[in-house]
């Protein structure tokens, strides 16, 4: 029986956690209720209330003994473990020995296992996912570090169960990161995953064969992370300020707060900019009572200098891991970066230098593990293996309209199957047929695109231009077969064409057509605007001529001649090859102004007659279907496909 409900992927981190889910065949990070993509793995007990995530972090300082962070370090560990003793120095809550000598957290006289604390973090992930998906979530894939032993993995699984989640699988964090980049599909490969998070650094060497990941070795530094980078900037700022003004700001909490905020901002800015300004006016007062301002510029190279030893230091564990795996840097085929701090260009550069190849990029390093967990969850839930991969149209499909302009109907990259209809009309009075020229490509002018086929719809009852309504429908089925039909709404006459393989283009062809369109974008735009201006001019001339015919006798001879002259000039101008859009617009404007007298005459005539005006339907030049020449009529057969 098919199981219902989605399986979520959870990156249960030491510092931060994230949750993702497969949706429509691709992984999606679920934002927390606070609107962030990750949340601190912190739980706080405050009276009867339990806070998790950002809110727990915000009250951490006032409530240090009841605010539990980094509990992952104690998962499945005995209280007397060396690692526990070391980690204990970095936390302010109490840890004691529980059942079987396991480490447990003591809050307000009550014992909590690390599983119970982690369960609260997982519970938040579950709740956020449920609120996002609008359905109950009771299954999850959870990630753990590759070095986690059986008891730590078991503890993580229990944490999931306490949170009301059936843990479908425990996945190694580096494996999840590799999955996020689809490295499981590459055949045999050796992968290095460099994970520098908020507070821990892990390096893992994986080997993949037949879709199965094997962890060859792991190493790391349990107390190295992005926070150390922030501290270096803060120290530098304090030192520089002291040098310049002789004042130590580290004792002033308000100044420290401002410096902390700006240091973090500068660090982020320096990942994309070469330098960052720190401007904090009125940060202190000088001995003379004058205000002191903190203004300084930090360059990227200065930052790199400040954290040089941290970065270099991270490569020691990398070397050890490679040695344990009996590999050389050159044996590694793929490098994956995890953790927000790996956004720093210098780290990417050093990783590239060390392994001799560029790391994979594209997935947010804060989210890559959760994304991989969601993909694994998708495979288990059947979302991934059975997923219907929907194709997209590689190029825009459209048709030719008045003046040789390409009018798009289905834009490129539209997911198929899809269908789109639009109403077109005739360009000339009493036009009884229209030609549909189906185009594929990105260029503005019809002639520059590829014509997939053409057909003629005839038997349109004679009417004024712009009156007939021809509905053109483009429909692409899931096999990429394009059906184009045109239907005259008055007579009900319909004509259609079927084009096979409208999406079947080689990548090179698609790329070439896109590149051409980019190259000619400006020129094409000008051409199209000119044609549109000509259509507009002809439309104006046409309308005024028509009105002159009906009401010209109501005008002075002189006025009438002046209008006629203007219309003639406008028509001549529209017929010229080397005319510009501006000239045409100006001439059309002038013609319309000169024809105002005609409008007045029309009004008077109508008032005098006191009878309704004949139907003067607005002709929209843009919507005119290209008029077909008479000689084509004889050649055209109904439904004929003209392939070129």
């Amino acid at each position, binding site marked *: 029986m098919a199981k219902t409900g989605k399986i979520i992927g959870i990156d249960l981190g030491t510092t931060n956690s994230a949750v993702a889910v497969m949706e429509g065949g691709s992984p999606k990070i679920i934002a927390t209720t606070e609107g962030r993509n990750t949340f601190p793995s912190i739980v706080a007990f405050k009276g009867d209330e339990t806070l998790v995530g950002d809110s727990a972090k*915000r*009250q951490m300082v*006032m409530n240090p003994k009841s605010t539990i962070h980094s509990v992952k370090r104690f998962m499945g560990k005995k209280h007397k473990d060396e690692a526990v003793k070391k980690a204990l120095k970095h936390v302010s809550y109490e840890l004691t020995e529980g059942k079987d000598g396991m480490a447990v957290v003591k809050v307000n006289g009550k014992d909590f296992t690390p599983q119970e604390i982690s369960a609260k973090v997982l519970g938040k992930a579950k709740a956020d996912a449920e609120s996002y*998906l609008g359905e109950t979530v009771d299954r999850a894939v959870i990630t753990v570090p590759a070095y986690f032993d059986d008891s730590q993995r078991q503890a993580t699984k229990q944490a999931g169960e306490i949170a009301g989640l059936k843990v479908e699988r425990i996945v190694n964090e580096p494996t999840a990161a590799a999955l996020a980049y689809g490295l499981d599909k590459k055949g045999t490969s050796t992968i290095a995953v460099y994970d520098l998070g908020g507070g821990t650094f892990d390096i893992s060497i994986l080997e993949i064969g037949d879709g199965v990941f094997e962890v060859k070795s792991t190493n790391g530094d349990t107390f190295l992370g992005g926070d150390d980078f922030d501290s270096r900037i803060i120290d530098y700022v304090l030192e520089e300020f002291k040098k310049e003004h002789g004042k130590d700001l580290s004792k002033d909490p*308000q100044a*420290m*707060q401002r410096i902390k*905020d700006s240091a973090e901002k500068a660090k982020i800015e320096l990942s994309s900019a070469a330098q960052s300004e720190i401007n904090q*006016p009125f940060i202190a007062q000088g001995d003379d009572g004058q205000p002191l301002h903190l203004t300084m510029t930090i360059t990227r190279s200065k930052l790199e200098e400040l954290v040089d030893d941290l970065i270099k230091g991270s490569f020691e564990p990398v070397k050890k891991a490679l040695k344990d795996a009996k590999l050389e840097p050159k044996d590694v085929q793929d490098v994956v970066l995890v953790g927000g701090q790996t956004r720093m260009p210098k780290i990417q550069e050093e990783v590239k230098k060390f392994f001799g190849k560029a790391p994979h990029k594209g997935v947010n390093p804060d989210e890559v593990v959760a994304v991989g967990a969601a993909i694994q969850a998708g495979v288990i839930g059947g979302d991934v293996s059975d997923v219907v991969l929907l194709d997209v149209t590689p190029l825009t499909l459209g048709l030719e309209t008045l003046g040789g302009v390409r009018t798009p109907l289905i834009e490129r990259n539209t997911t198929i199957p899809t269908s789109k209809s639009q109403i077109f009309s005739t360009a000339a009075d009493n036009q009884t047929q229209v030609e549909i020229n189906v185009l594929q490509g990105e260029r503005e002018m019809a002639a520059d695109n590829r014509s997939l086929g053409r057909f003629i719809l005839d038997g349109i009852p004679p009417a004024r231009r712009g009156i007939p309504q021809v509905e053109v429908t483009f429909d692409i089925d899931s096999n990429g077969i394009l059906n184009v039909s045109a239907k005259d709404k008055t007579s009900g006459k319909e004509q259609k064409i079927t084009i096979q393989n409208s999406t079947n283009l080689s990548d090179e062809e698609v790329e070439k057509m896109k590149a051409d369109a980019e190259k000619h974008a400006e020129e094409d735009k000008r051409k199209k605007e000119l044609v549109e201006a000509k259509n507009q001019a002809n439309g104006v001339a046409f309308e005024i001529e028509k009105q002159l015919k009906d009401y010209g006798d109501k005008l002075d001879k002189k006025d009438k001649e002046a209008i006629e002259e203007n219309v003639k000039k406008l028509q001549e101008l529209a017929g010229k090859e080397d005319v510009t859009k501006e000239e045409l617009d100006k001439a059309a404007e002038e013609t319309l102004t000169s024809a105002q007298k005609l409008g007045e005459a029309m009004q008077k005539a109508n008032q005098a007659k006191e009878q309704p005006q004949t139907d003067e339907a607005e002709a929209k030049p843009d919507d005119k279907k290209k008029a077909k020449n008479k000689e084509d009529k004889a050649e055209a057969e109904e439904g004929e496909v003209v392939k070129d």
Partner: protein
Amino acid sequence: MSKKSVKASAHVDQLQAQLEDLQIKLAQVQEQEKRALADYQNLLRRTQENRLEMIQMANRNLIEALLAPLEHLELAVAQHSDSGLKMILEQLKRSLTEFGLEEIKAQGKEFDVQTMEVAEGSGQGKKVAKVLRKGYLLNGKVIQHAKVILG
């Protein structure tokens, strides 16, 4: 049983198996279709919600970028009691209020984890003794938590 009927019954069995196979496949496809449809409906619902939120929060980035200059201007006013400068500050605040910005009143209030954050160096009391950085709401949503020191 005649040879013919044996053959016929084998054929029936084969068809039966084929039918069962197709029924299973049909059920799978129907399930898949339902899932796709559900995904789509959920997407529609969320797009609607996101749009609403986007409209309400469209100015968020701009206003967030203005919070630092606003803070600095306030410091300047506190430093120099210049009435012109004070006028400019009031004007700026009024304009931002019109766009939904609201200051979180924290001084002297009881600590509220939804709108405030305790800064390092804080005491263990319950009431806010000092505001290190003002907090703000934009259309009722916290865009900057007030950094406070408790008594």
